């Protein structure tokens, strides 16, 4: 081998690396850029029924299926589905790893400061997964503030943390789990006495795990005098205004169709949930205290 070769190869590698770093402009992709690329990068967080990947890697659930239908109306049919942890969704949007998050993430003021939301796609209430037979007689989130012997599991990055904090549950009674899929094991093994999540998630988990059930006499947590309800929406990079506006317009149209109702009903949303999804605007929810 000639002596110069390693040096030349090194120079080529450095040039290549710099090239990779410098090609595309920074910030979020605009609608034109997405159209040019032809593929939309959509992230989900593997939470049934909001958004998850099935065996063959196809995205299912309320978020992905509505997103796919809305994007199709916008003329964007190719979607690159990316699964990641719930707590990585917002960092991924900010780092421009995805164009859109379809995880029915609840619109919350502190999240609005980081990313932009579409108008609400769905609305859902809370639930509680407990060991079969509910041996500790847990009835609601407030129990964890009052009873010292109880611990509650929550998913990292989920908004149940804020709810529990608002109810005065101390940190040491909360157990953080990484993913929704850990909940059954955490509750049935006694690592936590309950798992706090949305009503639909709890219903799905209760269905799958034999040694767990949805708390039978669950009372919706009441914070600031109102029972807690969340509004799930699609999230965008804060710089992706034209893409979000176009998506929002197509979403508003799609929500008038029976197809939209069929998707939500298939995953267990009630008529009341469907109607409630129209009851609040993103601006109201972002401005809430």
């Amino acid at each position, binding site marked *: 081998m000639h002596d110069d070769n390693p040096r030349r190869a090194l120079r080529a590698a450095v040039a290549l690396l710099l090239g990779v770093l410098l090609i*595309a402009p920074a910030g979020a992709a605009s609608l034109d850029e997405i159209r040019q690329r032809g593929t939309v990068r959509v992230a989900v967080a593997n939470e049934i029924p909001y958004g998850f990947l099935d*065996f063959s890697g196809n995205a299912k659930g309320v978020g992905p299926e509505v997103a796919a239908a809305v994007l199709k109306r916008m003329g964007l049919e190719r979607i690159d589905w990316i699964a990641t942890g719930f707590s990585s969704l917002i960092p991924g949007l900010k780092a421009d*790893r995805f164009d859109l998050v379809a995880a029915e993430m609840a619109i919350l003021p502190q999240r609005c400061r980081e990313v932009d939301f579409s108008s609400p796609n769905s609305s859902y209430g809370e639930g509680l997964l407990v060991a079969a037979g509910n041996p500790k007689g847990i009835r609601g989130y407030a129990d964890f503030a009052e009873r010292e012997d109880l611990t509650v599991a929550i998913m990292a990055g989920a908004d149940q943390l804020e709810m529990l904090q608002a109810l005065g549950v101390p940190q040491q009674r909360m157990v953080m789990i990484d993913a929704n*899929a850990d909940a059954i*094991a955490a509750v049935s093994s006694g690592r936590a006495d309950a798992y706090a999540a949305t009503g639909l998630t709890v219903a799905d988990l209760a269905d799958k795990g034999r040694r767990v059930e949805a708390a039978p006499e669950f009372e919706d947590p009441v914070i600031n005098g109102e029972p807690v309800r969340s509004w799930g929406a699609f999230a965008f990079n804060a710089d992706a205004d034209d893409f979000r506006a176009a998506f929002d317009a197509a979403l508003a149209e799609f929500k008038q169709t029976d197809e939209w109702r069929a998707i939500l009903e298939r995953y267990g949303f009630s008529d009341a949930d469907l109607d409630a999804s129209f009851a609040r605007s993103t601006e109201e929810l972002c401005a809430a205290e």
Partner: protein
Amino acid sequence: MNWLDYLDPMLQGAWITVQLTAYSTVFGALLAFAAGTGRLSRHWPIKAIAVAYIEIFRGTSLLVQMFWLFYALPLIGQALGFDARLPPMVAGVIALSANIGAYGAEVVRGAIQAVPRPQYEAALALNFTPRQTLWRITLPQALPEMMPAFGNLAIQNLKDTALVSLITIADLALVTERIRNLTQDSATVYTLALLMYFGMALVLAALMKLLAARVGGWRAR
């Protein structure tokens, strides 16, 4: 739905794991040689770079390095006005190989230093150039010494690839999580994943053994 249905997606994930392991082991070995010999260099800037690289990558968490490359570097790029979004596979391979390279560098250095001093003196007396000494005296004796430790590192590297599932790469660990999420059949899914990692580790160990026989073959003669 039984365990046979899990195999197809899991094998696809395993294939990604194999690719990651292959790339990062090869690049890691190159980095290990560069930094290991750099650390012994007589030129202080080269030595300083090698020492800084080894200490930084050995001394920080691989998981945090991956998150940093994947989620933090693009933000820094945005602030400075360039696009620093490494593709997931590239970010994963960089973090894995830089890590394994830093550990491997110490193996390389140790093996080179273990070559007896009289060997160098003899090379000098016979008027070998430094390059000839490296290729004909040092490496033939040092390489066989490195191989057992390199075998360990390669297997360690294979298992470390599971961390890339946290930066959206659909490797065996991520597919395992996905199937568990769908079925909640934790016992079967995780057992299959363990067996697949074990199978890959056995193959890798065998390959390293072949490589060790190749570089150490002259000793038997």
